[in-house]
């Protein structure tokens, strides 16, 4: 908006003082500063993530590990007691709750596919 009158001599001086400056160096310098800033920000984010991970591990890591061991033991308990002979060794991979869960899931997916013609898993 040019609503106010300006001194024409001053206006002319300002226009003449305006020069087209070559920006190659300045542009390179700014881009280099943005790269450095990005590196610093990435390092900061990594450090923060590490601190959070360590804190979480310190607070609940041991409990989580114990819980995982309990679940693992529960799932691998033999369903039928076969002793310690060769029969137990043969059936070891399937004689537990985990195998039953995997097998039943697989069967359910196959049944679903058979019934509907569409797969639940891509």
């Amino acid at each position, binding site marked *: 908006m040019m609503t*106010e009158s300006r001194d024409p001599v001053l206006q002319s001086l*300002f226009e003449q003082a305006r*020069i087209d400056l070559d920006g190659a160096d*300045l542009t390179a310098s700014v881009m280099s*500063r943005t790269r450095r800033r990005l590196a610093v920000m990435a390092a900061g984010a990594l450090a923060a993530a590490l601190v959070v991970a360590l804190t979480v591990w310190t607070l609940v890591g041991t409990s989580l590990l114990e819980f995982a061991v309990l679940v693992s033991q529960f799932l691998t308990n033999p369903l039928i007691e076969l002793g310690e002979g060769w029969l137990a060794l043969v059936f070891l991979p399937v004689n537990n709750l985990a195998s039953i869960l995997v097998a039943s899931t697989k069967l359910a997916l196959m049944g679903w596919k058979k019934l509907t013609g569409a797969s639940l898993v891509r």
Partner: protein
Amino acid sequence: MPQAQDFYPDCPEAFLVSLARSGDRTAFEELVRRRQSQLRNLMRRFCNDNALADDLAQQVLMKVWLNLRQLKEPAAFPAWFKRLAVTTWLEHLRRKDALRGAGELHGAERAPAAAPGMGMDLDRALARLEPEQRLCVVLSYHEGLSHREIAGLTDMPLGTVKTHIRSGAERLREILEAYAAPGAQEAAT
């Protein structure tokens, strides 16, 4: 086959701003290339020190890069950019008390009619104004902003802006009166 970068020089600024906002560094680089001359000229009028002006211009451009995501409307970029430049200058004034540097020039001689580097004379003359006067005069004469726009940009009352521009322009005319003489401008350029 043309590269993606070949298209940037022909892109409208608002489109470049949108791309830069989403993290496109090549678009930001093109923005810097387009805006740097205008910004450095503005800073030179503000501070009468080319090295400082370039340093402040880099600070402004870094602020643009860091805060571009906050800009809701790409079309508002020119006004936002100008505000960042003015804010950076005002922050510099507050930090360094640039008045002291300007005060050193109070004893300077008036600009001769055919002095080399008219831009330098103008910058020296501007440095002899009060910082608020200089800010308002530069925004009015260099950037072509209206009094109301300057008031909005600087958070000064409209009446104060008008007073600063009137008194600042009078003072500038006094200092640069040699340039008003017939034929003086041609001789200086």
